[in-house]
């Protein structure tokens, strides 16, 4: 079936919905999502959205920008970071005006709390910058944005899974989607398209990410020959519930929670003397791995403790109610009286579809934009997070760049016509769906996926080295061969989730490839990418962004410079 809209937004999470809201009244919009919008992963974000409102104590967007630059291990583009931190303030007020029910101070203003990596006066001490709604800030953001879309009658195509981007003569002209309920293919013809499809944590076994996070937008773009940026940088969040991946917000440490090893030691005092348990996530995850590796895990095992017992029942029930519920439901323990077993958990991809500050997708080393194509949110790489993202900055990112994309898309729509579609735009997707349905190879997508997740966790997670990366690449080649032989039981058209899961596995395999190749090439350690064989940061050779392109003879890498405005790279100590 054929549809036409001025603007098509793929993904109905925080970035996609914010862009849709920005386009209201300026363009005819269609939002296409493989999930019902309120199921999007933005809803699971807990801790808060970082903005220098200065409600609790003096704060400054400059300090926020510096913290973000340093947090990114100096790989973040500083012009984009400064823009983000300045516009963060208005983004928070905009959300409140839309109705977001923030937690409040006694004086009626939005409450703010401490968060990892956020400091006052360029690193002096932790600062209260995270604007929060209990520990369900993401849920509130998603609900509020969706409610605004309802108010303004935004057109939604729910459970339509976008599987291809339509490009004609170097110009973006739409997308192809598979309708889950009927198996029908749909062509969405548009003047402008925004990809806001989220991350790809399902590449790893222990992850905070939802089942739906299979990097669809990134893989679609990559398969169309566009580069992916900084794929080697994948963040592991320190405090996921042991074995389950369920996240305990960094906000718990913002409220005063501490990390303990098997000896009852507050070990972060050794690794980050100034801000201790509020150090950035990559620093803490590495510290935790070292503690476990050196035998100081709880009872010598592979987990540590997050201790909230000194916070008191009142603080936990009022400010951290959801995570208290997780711990009680899934572990059967009460965090008011017992410490929580936690381990580093695959959480966020800093890399993704390269864009400029207006969300325009750029396709080469000199940032040439592809007309009509935009991206925002976790699937994009502006880059504001560089080699490591600070907590609360993702919610800022999706609001600021969701809005900026929407603003620029509205302008673009005014000044452009619909580009004609190429012949048979649905051809590639149709062929792949039919191939998956008809295949008789006998391989199981589920088994291949489980092996991918386990091996990536083992060989390419927090600590990496050339031998493990090479071994993983060999394993990946084997998995990709086996993927060609995947067959499915469900040959039907109605809610064929088996074929879709197999299609998503194909995406993950492609993305794992870009991650491994980029990681092997980067012979330094920076942010979340830590090489045991190259343990130091090497600015002379590596202060640059990686671009990974798909070619017929494998992945081609190239590089582009980091934009530095104010802060020259320094040693990153906390």
């Amino acid at each position, binding site marked *: 079936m054929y549809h036409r809209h001025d603007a098509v937004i793929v993904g109905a999470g925080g970035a996609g919905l914010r862009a849709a809201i920005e386009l209201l009244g300026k363009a005819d919009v269609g939002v296409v999502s493989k999930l*019902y919008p309120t199921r999007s*992963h933005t809803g699971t974000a807990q801790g808060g959205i970082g903005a220098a409102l200065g409600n609790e104590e003096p704060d400054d967007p400059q300090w926020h920008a510096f913290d973000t630059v340093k947090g990114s291990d100096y790989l973040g583009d500083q012009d984009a970071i400064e823009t983000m931190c300045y516009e963060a303030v208005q983004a928070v007020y905009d959300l*409140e005006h839309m*109705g977001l029910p923030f937690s*409040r*101070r006694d004086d009626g203003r939005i409450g703010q709390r401490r968060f990892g990596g956020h400091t006052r006066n360029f690193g002096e001490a932790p600062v209260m910058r995270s604007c929060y709604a209990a520990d369900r800030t993401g849920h509130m953001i998603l609900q509020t944005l969706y409610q605004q879309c309802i108010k303004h009658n935004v057109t939604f195509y729910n459970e339509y899974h976008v599987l291809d981007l339509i490009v004609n003569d170097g110009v973006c002209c739409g997308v192809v989607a598979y309708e889950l309920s009927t198996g029908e293919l749909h062509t969405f013809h548009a003047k402008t398209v925004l990809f806001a499809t989220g991350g790809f944590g399902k590449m790893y076994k222990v992850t905070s990410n939802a089942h739906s996070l299979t990097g669809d937008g990134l893989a679609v773009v990559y398969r169309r020959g566009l580069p992916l940026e900084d794929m080697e940088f994948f963040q592991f969040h320190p405090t996921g519930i042991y074995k389950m991946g369920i996240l305990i917000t960094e906000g718990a440490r913002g409220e005063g929670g501490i990390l303990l090893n098997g000896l009852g030691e507050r070990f972060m005092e050794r690794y980050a003397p100034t801000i201790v348990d509020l150090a950035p996530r990559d620093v803490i995850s590495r510290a935790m791995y070292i503690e476990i590796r050196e035998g100081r895990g709880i009872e010598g095992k*592979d987990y540590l403790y997050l201790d909230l017992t000194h916070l008191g029942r009142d603080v936990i029930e009022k400010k951290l109610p959801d995570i208290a519920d997780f711990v009680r439901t899934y572990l059967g323990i009460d965090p008011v009286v017992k410490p929580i077993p936690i381990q580093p958990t695959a959480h966020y991809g800093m890399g993704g579809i390269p864009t400029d500050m207006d969300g325009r997708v750029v396709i080469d080393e000199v940032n040439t934009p592809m007309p009509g194509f935009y991206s925002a949110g976790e699937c994009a790489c502006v880059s504001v997070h560089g080699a490591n993202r600070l907590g609360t900055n993702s919610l800022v990112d999706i609001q600021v760049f969701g809005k900026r994309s929407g603003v620029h898309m509205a302008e673009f729509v005014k000044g452009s016509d619909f580009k004609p579609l190429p012949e048979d735009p649905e051809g590639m997707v149709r062929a792949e769906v039919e191939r998956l349905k008809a295949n008789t190879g006998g391989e199981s997508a589920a*088994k291949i996926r489980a092996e991918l997740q386990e091996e990536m966790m*083992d060989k390419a997670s927090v600590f990496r080295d050339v031998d493990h990366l090479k071994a993983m690449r060999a394993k990946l080649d084997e998995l990709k061969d086996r993927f060609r032989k995947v067959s499915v039981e469900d040959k039907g058209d109605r809610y064929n989730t*088996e074929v879709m899961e197999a299609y998503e596995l194909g995406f993950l395999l492609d993305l794992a490839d870009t991650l491994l190749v980029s990681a092997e090439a980067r012979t330094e350690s920076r942010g979340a990418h830590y090489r045991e064989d190259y343990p130091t940061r090497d600015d002379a050779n590596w202060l640059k962004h990686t671009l990974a392109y798909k070619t017929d003879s494998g992945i081609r890498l190239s590089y582009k410079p980091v934009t530095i405005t104010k802060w020259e790279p320094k040693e990153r100590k906390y």
Partner: protein
Amino acid sequence: MLWHLAPGARTKHDMQVNLRIKRFNPDSEKKPIFRNYTAEAEPTDRVLDALNYVKWYHDGTLAYRRSCAHGICGSDAMIINGVNRLACKALIQDVGTHIVIEPIAGFRVLKDLIVDTEPFFEQYRSILPYLINDDPPPIKERLQSPEERELFDDTTKCILCASCTASCPIFWYNQAYVGPAAIVNAHRFIFDSRDEGAAERLDILNSRTGVWRCRTIFNCTEACPREIEVTRAIEDVKRALLYGQI
């Protein structure tokens, strides 16, 4: 590293679980039928983990919605051993090793455990679920005291999973009833000091298919995975209509 020893690697499992799942594909079957499956699971696994096991290793045609797998997105509400639950919040040790799984009631079954939720979202939209305030906003945030914020805190927690509405006997009998979830979301705005649309929403709910259909049965409160006091919220709205208590 030791990740391969973590459970879910399927190398070590404590027990076998028997699942009896109500299957239905309108394209190929005239009516639903229960099918039996077995899955390997640990007591601390979620029912969703067992469903995944069945789908991934026994029967790929099994269809169900799921996403976050920890009780926030609201995708996987289903009837588990006769009670509405989120499959990702119900643990094997809570429900036992003989598990009957059916789609939630009151909505047309599209396939297996997937139901048509369009009517549910229509009910939601009908109560104007967005902030209504035509005054130009201040430069910064509108002020709201912690006490004002507390008044509607409970009903902000709704994840639109439909467990409540699908557990309501009034709704089963007559789908024209706007349902508990819609009333909860109306409550969230009616009692939000920044909102000025209370009268409008109360008017909508002051009808034969609105709040007055509620018979205080309490199934909704029992079913809610977010532990929202749904019946109390409905009661608050009834009182607001009767006594103007807001």
